[in-house]
């Protein structure tokens, strides 16, 4: 029992090697860190509306975007870390850790909200233009700070670009029973998740938002991607590996990506739009991000299939120094995600307050990513230092550092 506990706590510090022969892989898959890191950069770039660098982000080349990558990998890592905890320490302990993680993300979200409020209070105080008399009504909520702040604490009032963390919180809150099911009856868990997704579409299930409407990322729909990621982490990926090697799957994935690219092109080059037959537009549009449209989900699957095929787990590139910054950012995803949201606010603020030229936009994008990398390196350094100091070792093990990376 004691040995077991010690084993579990050292392993909680993630990359610890070799656990006693579980059914699923125990070594941290650096590809996850790499792609999550890249996704965090893309989310940062996409959150600055006026940015020429956005032309390089994947949402301009197909249906899905960095959000899908982020949520899938988050599900994968959550299952990877807490799945092991649940096997070794039981339901109660692992659930407690998952809920603590949800709490940390909640606190991070409220912190970001505070920064956001400061920004809009500034805009409200300084910006005036008769042309935008109508749009300025958006600041009305500042007249009722009591209600607004309360609604924000309830996760009902969510400013633009602050929708991902609340989704993540809700997904984690319901993760303990789902994880239990995934460990015992993985197929049933996946079917249940898909069924919930279908029900969400059929009955328009979503959570209410303030002052009106519903959540931008519908948790009932997006849970499918999270659970699918978790399912892959708990052995699903191995089950799919045969399928992934099939040339038919490869061909389908490539064809679908080409199709998505062609359709996306018609959004930007208007004259091409007339080559899209009406029946196809009617069937295809709108491609709904809120409810994780099937076309988006399929696009993510196609991307993932190609990635798994061409970037194997032991790909030597994962050791290349040039990829380490992205990997490092992916390993501290919560902190770097929050930092990215903040940097996007700040970048947008600079662009609208001072100058918005393409050079400034490029500079802001590059500097933002450099700050993200520097911060991730600093966090790694802290972790290494804390891990080395003998007095803190026991503490660090208890402090759920693995959860810190889920």
């Amino acid at each position, binding site marked *: 029992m004691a040995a077991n506990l010690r084993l579990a706590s050292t392993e909680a510090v993630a990359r610890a090697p070799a656990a006693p022969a579980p059914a699923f892989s125990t070594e941290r898959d650096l590809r996850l860190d790499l792609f999550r890191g890249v996704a965090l950069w893309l989310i940062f770039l996409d959150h600055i*509306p*006026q940015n*020429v660098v*956005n*032309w390089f982000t994947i949402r*301009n080349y197909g249906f899905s975007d960095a959000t899908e990558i982020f949520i899938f990998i988050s599900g994968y890592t959550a299952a990877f870390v807490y799945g092991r905890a649940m096997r070794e320490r039981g339901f109660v302990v692992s659930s407690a850790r998952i809920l603590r993680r949800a709490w940390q993300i909640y606190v991070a979200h409220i912190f970001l909200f505070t920064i956001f409020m400061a*920004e*809009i209070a500034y*805009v409200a105080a*300084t*910006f*005036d*233009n*008769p*042309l*935008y*008399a*109508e*749009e*300025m*009504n*958006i*600041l009305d909520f500042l007249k009722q700070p009591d209600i607004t702040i309360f609604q924000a604490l309830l996760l009902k009032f969510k*400013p*633009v*670009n602050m929708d991902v963390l609340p989704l993540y919180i809700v997904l984690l809150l319901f993760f303990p029973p789902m994880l239990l099911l995934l460990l015992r009856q993985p197929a049933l868990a996946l079917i249940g998740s898909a069924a919930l997704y279908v029900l969400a579409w059929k009955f*328009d299930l979503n959570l209410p*938002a303030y*002052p*009106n*409407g*519903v959540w931008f990322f519908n948790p009932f729909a997006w849970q499918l991607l999270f659970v699918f990621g978790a399912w892959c982490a708990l052995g699903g990926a191995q089950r799919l590996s045969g399928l992934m090697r099939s040339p038919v799957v490869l061909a389908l994935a490539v064809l679908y990506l080409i199709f998505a690219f062609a359709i996306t092109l018609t*959004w*930007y*080059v*208007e004259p091409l739009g*007339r080559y899209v037959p009406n029946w196809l*537009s*009617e069937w295809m*549009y*709108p491609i709904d*991000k*809120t409810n994780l449209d099937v076309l988006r989900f399929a696009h993510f699957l196609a991307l993932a299939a190609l990635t798994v095929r061409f970037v194997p787990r032991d790909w030597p590139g994962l050791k290349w120094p040039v990829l380490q910054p992205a990997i490092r950012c992916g390993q501290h995803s919560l902190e770097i995600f929050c930092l990215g949201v903040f940097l996007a*606010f700040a970048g*947008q603020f600079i662009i*609208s*307050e001072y100058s*918005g030229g393409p050079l400034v936009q490029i500079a802001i994008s590059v500097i933002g990513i450099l700050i993200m990398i520097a911060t991730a390196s600093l966090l790694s350094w802290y972790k290494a230092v804390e891990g080395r100091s003998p007095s803190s070792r026991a503490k660090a093990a208890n402090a759920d550092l693995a959860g810190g990376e889920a």
Partner: protein
Amino acid sequence: MKRGMRSFIAFLAVFVTAAAVGAEEPAAVCDVPDSFVSSDTDLARVTAAIKEQKRLDISVIGTASSMLPGPNGAHFAYPAHMEDALKRLLPGIEVKVNTHVTPRTTTAEMAAGLKTILDQDKPALVVWQAGTADALQGIEPDDFHASLDSGLDAIQDAGADVILVNMQFSPRTESLLDVSAYADIMHWAAQQHGAVLFDRLGLMHAWADQGTFDLYAATKDYAMARKVHACIGRALASLIINAAHLDGEKLQTAH
């Protein structure tokens, strides 16, 4: 971002007549890329009204961004400029523009009020500005889509053509108010109903990119707002002329 691309095709730009509208109005010069004032969809009802009845009745329906605050705001807002430009471009045709602008009305409310307006104005063309109030109030995109659908049906059942006008490009409030989902819905709804879309959002974005207007500016002055509305009004008039295939000869004589 979709609209940022428009600046790349700005070489397509045509020059919209910069003739001053009204003596007190500063002459606004604004390049309008061709794609904003042309459409694959025809305004057949407008063409027929002009050719057969020698008149053009237009109803403008919208919210606060279809008017300007301040004294005599309606006079400086885009519907008035559109009317003036059409009168100039269509000599001998009786052009009448009725505006029904109510701040803070959602698309559902506007759609509900359409019947009265259609009965009363009997327009050949409805210019329907929508989306901003819905985005402000966080109306569910699906509901917004349904309201647009029912409104477009009502207008087309009444035998009128439609131009949908989407939101203004407002860079200062962009981080607070995301209108893109609503803009996309307007795009699809126009396509599905064979209505014309006037992409005000894209056009103002192109102006900001080209430096035509400093839309970031904080000012209490009405001058820029009036110029923007003048340019929008004239661009709308060009779109109507083009989509109704009113021949170029007439355009020439109108100068």
